[in-house]
């Protein structure tokens, strides 16, 4: 048994487009250890969702393809498995939660039926057992009077409640890994905090690993053990959470931190936005993909050759000038306190 539940290596995902094949995930590698919560951070279009969906074979249905790379889950290779084989793993050993709780439930069935269906299919449980499991799960995710609520339809639940139901579906079969794609983004802040609380609690109790996608560093600080920062379809920095917040090594990570209101408050300065916008994926700049927006760009070093992801202390960084740049980046340890964690 390997140490990591999920090992993604050099994953390349492409989509056909009028501009030729777009590489939306470009040699991304990441590990999720057992009982570990890993956050993947990045702005829209950075390829974070695509990485996750490709990992469990969901991009094919959208017209994309995994060009190369490997995804090892619990010692098994997932890339190249048939849909039938993947269907035995999805929802059973890997749970998945989507961003839109309002749209992720089928309006035609009661929530109890939707949870029970997963249990019946993967565990061969009888209708009765599956229903009992559904009620138990609703109780586990903190829905009051679960037995009667199981008979309600999705439209009778609020957004936060629906996300709890989604969690109940994802966790109904005791998965070893939960992939959560921005599960709290559509929720308001108070509900979000409670969801994160619940997620951490369930992660502990059910001994599972969590791969959590978000663009909110506040959420990262709240739950992550390790963080992977993605930019322009690539991983640009990977580090343990404390390390990442204390000493960011990539200018992009530092930029994300400086843009956080909590960090700005702690520093007594207004938040700083990263200038510019993400380039289109058919027209990445040469060299470092972040170079047009980076304050440390040196023509030549940063703008000609692709930059490698190299280990740097406890972290992995994709920056040609990280040694030179790093001391100049935001250092939260020097500030009075870390962001609200």
């Amino acid at each position: 048994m390997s140490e990591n539940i999920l090992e993604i290596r050099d994953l390349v995902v492409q989509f056909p487009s009028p501009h030729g094949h777009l590489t939306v995930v470009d040699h991304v590698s990441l590990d999720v250890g057992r009982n570990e919560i890993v956050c993947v951070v990045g702005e829209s279009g950075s390829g974070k969702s695509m990485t996750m969906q490709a990992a469990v074979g969901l991009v094919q249905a959208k017209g994309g393809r995994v060009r190369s790379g490997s995804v090892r889950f619990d010692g098994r290779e997932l890339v190249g498995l048939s849909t039938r084989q993947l269907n035995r793993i999805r929802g059973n050993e890997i749970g998945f939660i989507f961003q839109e709780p309002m749209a992720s439930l089928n309006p035609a069935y009661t929530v109890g039926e939707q949870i029970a269906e997963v249990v019946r299919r993967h565990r061969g449980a009888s209708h009765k057992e599956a229903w009992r499991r559904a009620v138990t799960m609703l109780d586990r995710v903190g829905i009051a009077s679960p037995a009667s609520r199981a008979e309600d339809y999705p439209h009778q639940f609020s957004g936060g409640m629906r996300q709890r139901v989604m969690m109940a579906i994802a966790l109904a079969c005791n998965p070893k890994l939960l992939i959560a794609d921005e599960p709290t983004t559509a929720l308001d802040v108070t509900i979000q905090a409670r969801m994160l609380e619940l997620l951490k609690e369930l992660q502990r109790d059910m001994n599972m690993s969590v791969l959590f996608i978000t663009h909110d560093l506040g959420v990262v600080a709240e739950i992550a053990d390790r963080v992977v920062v993605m930019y322009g379809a690539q991983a640009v920095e990977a580090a343990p959470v404390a390390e990442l917040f204390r000493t960011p090594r990539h200018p992009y990570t530092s930029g994300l931190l400086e843009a956080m209101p909590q960090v700005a408050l702690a520093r007594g300065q207004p938040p700083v936005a990263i200038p510019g916008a993400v380039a289109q994926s058919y027209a990445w700049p040469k060299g470092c993909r972040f170079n047009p927006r980076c304050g440390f760009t040196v023509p030549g070093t940063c703008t000609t050759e692709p930059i490698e992801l190299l280990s740097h202390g406890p972290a992995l960084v994709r920056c040609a000038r990280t040694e030179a740049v790093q001391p100049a980046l935001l250092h939260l340890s020097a500030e009075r306190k870390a962001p609200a964690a």
Partner: protein
Amino acid sequence: MSNAIAAALAPPTNPPEAVTLPPPSGFFRRFARNRVALVSLIVLLLIVLTAIFAPVLAPHDPAKSSLRNILKPPSAMYLLGSDDLGRDVLSRLIFASRLSLVASVQALVIAVGIGLPLGLISGYIGGWVDTVIMRFNDALMSFPALILAVVIVGLLGPSLTNAMTAIGLVYAPRIMRVVRGSTLSVREEVYVQAARATGCSDARIIARHVLPNITGPLVVQATVLMGHALLAEAGLSFLGLGVQPPETSWGAMLGTAFPYLAQSPTPTIAAGCIISVTVLCFNLIGDGLRDSVGRARRAGD
């Protein structure tokens, strides 16, 4: 103050009528609010009940002819008069309703049986499969429905089953269009993706997640097509391509009564009216269903 408001809000007289209905929540309540559709549904139910209890309700044997009473005007004996062979028109209409309704259902079953699976496949799989199915569909739809049905009956030979098979084939593309369109939009729903992420196979997604969510538009289209099928059956039978004597349907009755329009207009008018009323009922129910289903969609976030 609060007393005044309470007094103003209190229903003045006849509390049961004055109390406003609670906001419509269910599909049935929305449908029931649509008076026209509700009345159509009741009328249609009456027609169906009449067909079911035809032997009890018909005042005369529909096949028994009386040569002394040919083409009689309405009377106490023959409420809607008698036809060219001296048979009671009312009794024949009552019995003919059975064949007319069953024939429409036959056509509908064939249309849905062909259109639903092909529409689901076309919409869900997409790509070249969709292109092939839809071009074939377009070709079928470009023919005027009745003409195509006449051609098919001409090839298969005149009989009610052949006529309804033809009509079913002709209407299958319309079902297919509606099903494909709805499937296309449901396929993109997050819950379909979520189902895939819980390990649902494509077949299961179509059966469990797509199908239940397209029933609304499908039922609406099917109801309207029922009306069309009834009319088409009447048309084909009128032309002698549908039901064959001694059996009869409304269209066939219209056909046999038509040459005697000058001597005795009642059989023609009676058959024409019942066809029109039934078709109208189906169409109005279809409209009512469409409105009710539509609102359900909008209310659901």
